[in-house]
């Protein structure tokens, strides 16, 4: 098989090769990061490690071709995967060469596929949900043998059923639109929301990796609380079976604690303003919870932790200046865009001091 991978990040480079039988696929990469291209060009191979039942499985991935321009993607591929981030996705699709093979979007937003289909109705674009965490780095021990190595979890990749995919061995699990939507919603709320909360609290506790953060009991309890809030919320809001959601939640807590993954706190916590957008994983999730009568106590802790995130190298590092300088009601209204007459506003303002004390104690 000939497989294209656009975006040589954690999912594209780390996870996608595991969808196929080793040694029977040629991989063609497109990557915009010049330094990464240079690094990959020297050996044209790297190691991807997968965590399976507490151990690593490893494979050497050989790179057949490598380019920075998606227009250079070979036209005789069997399938292409795109994992470049939601912001870059439309631009990549716009420049995509005219082709007939399936293009699988591994972004965190099905909405971008709708946009992409409008931009390029000639392409066969599919939305898929990889149910894994992949880390762009690996532990020092693994980096010593291959500096380009990276780690991914073992997990299924769900994709919508389509006649265009019939008889196609993509390594993915084809499901109905409804099942895909359930997987997506579970990932969006039961994974994304608690995941970033664990990272912000982990940063407050000065931890490097997520599993280190999760080894601290108060953090584990808050993250578990956020998972429970989201399980109740998604069940009430969308009518998804509670057993499925509870099992998803258990799986998430387990994967956040996966010490083989070495998921960097800094990566998961990056760009707090984006995560604090009104419809995003923190404020958006809290608003949905309140709309179905679930009080998002632990998600509010996450909102406070994100608002006080103080990593100097982050694109959004100025958030700490605003949250430190503004009275909480002003910050909530002007910066976070939370209406003063909303329940979330009251919940946030009333508990802000208590939450900041709690978060402050994590660094002690």
């Amino acid at each position, binding site marked *: 098989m000939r497989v294209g991978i656009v975006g040589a990040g954690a999912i594209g480079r780390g996870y996608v090769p595991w969808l196929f039988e080793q040694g029977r696929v040629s991989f063609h990469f497109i990557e915009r990061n010049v330094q990464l291209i240079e690094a990959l060009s020297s050996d044209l191979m790297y190691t991807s490690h997968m965590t399976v039942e507490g151990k690593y499985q490893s494979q050497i991935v050989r790179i057949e071709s490598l380019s920075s321009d998606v227009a250079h993607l070979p036209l005789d591929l069997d399938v292409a995967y795109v994992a470049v981030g939601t912001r870059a996705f439309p631009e990549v699709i716009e420049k995509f060469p005219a082709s007939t093979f399936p293009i699988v979007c591994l972004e965190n937003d099905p909405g971008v596929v709708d946009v992409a289909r409008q931009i390029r109705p000639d392409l066969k674009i599919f939305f898929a949900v990889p149910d894994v965490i992949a880390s762009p780095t690996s532990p020092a021990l693994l980096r010593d043998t291959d500096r380009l190595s990276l780690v991914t979890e073992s997990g299924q990749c769900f994709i919508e059923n389509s006649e265009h995919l019939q008889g196609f061995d993509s390594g993915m699990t084809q499901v109905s639109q409804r099942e895909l939507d359930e997987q997506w919603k579970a990932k969006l709320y039961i994974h994304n929301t608690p995941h970033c909360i664990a990272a912000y609290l982990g940063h407050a506790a000065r931890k490097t990796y997520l599993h280190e953060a999760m080894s601290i009991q108060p953090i584990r309890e808050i993250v578990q609380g956020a998972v429970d809030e989201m399980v109740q919320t998604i069940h009430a809001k969308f009518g998804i079976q509670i057993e499925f959601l509870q099992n998803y939640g258990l799986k998430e807590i387990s994967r956040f604690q996966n010490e083989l993954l070495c998921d960097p706190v800094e990566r998961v916590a990056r760009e707090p303003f984006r995560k604090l957008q009104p419809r995003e994983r923190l404020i958006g999730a809290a608003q949905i919870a309140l709309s179905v009568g679930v009080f998002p106590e632990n998600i509010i802790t996450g909102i406070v932790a994100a608002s006080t995130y103080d990593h100097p190298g982050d694109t959004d590092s100025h958030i700490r*200046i605003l949250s430190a300088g503004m009275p909480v009601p*002003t910050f909530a209204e002007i*910066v976070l865009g939370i209406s003063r007459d909303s329940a979330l506003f009251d919940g946030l303002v009333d508990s802000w001091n208590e939450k900041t004390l709690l978060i402050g104690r994590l660094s002690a």
Partner: protein
Amino acid sequence: MRRPTDDEITTALIRCASEAGELLMKVFGDKHSFHRKGTLRDITSSVDLAAEDAILSVLAETLPGVPVIAEEKHRDSLGGSDTFICVDGLDGSVNFVHGLPEWAVSIGWVEGGIPTSGVIFSPPNKEIFYGGLALGTFRNQERVNVTANPLSNSLLAASFSGGSGHLEQRDEEYMIFGKLNDNSQGVVRSGSGALNLARMSSGQIDGVWGRNARIWDVFAGLALVRGAGGEVWMSEINWEDFSVQYVAGGAGNFSDLSRKAYPEREVCRASPCTRGLKMF
């Protein structure tokens, strides 16, 4: 005394502006009595004073020992220091008493005699502009930059001095206003010199000038424009009435704008002080 870090300065200025802004919003829309200080539009009211007091109170706690020059009543002696804080508790008082939302709290940090950091808070518009040379300039969550539009594609803003001491220059000011209005996409006169500059720093307005502007009205904004990559010409401060002449533009219009705004001066004389700022 240790110099506060740029983060500490900006955090303190944001706290001051927020406190004053909250106070002002509580009474915005009410009827206010005012009295005139000079011209018909140079007015002050009890809320101007209350906002200034709120800011001074926070400054005394957060940046103690730094001299403050405020619009309404507070004028510390600089004692030879060229580091001080400029405060305008309510810039756009006429708009405020008329219920128009174009007003702001404006606080600037001045170092070496020139503005380097600032905060401009517009509560009715839910906008806070902050930062300066060291941090760059931000509007709410976003980092912002000035535009590079040529003069012909520029939306400009002008401010006229509110004081009565320069009335003999009015004819010339109006002539320049008209000339620039005809040579650009137009000239706004918003009634708030601070907001003019804030909006320029975020690229909504492309260039700003002002004659005999008071330092508390414009120093915060000039710092923000510089932090957003803009270019600024500024005169020495006239300490008798705390006024300056200034012009601010982007790479595409600065040269044309400064020549037209100050035709009597050799504004192209190269005497750069620091990044983005030149003195007349």
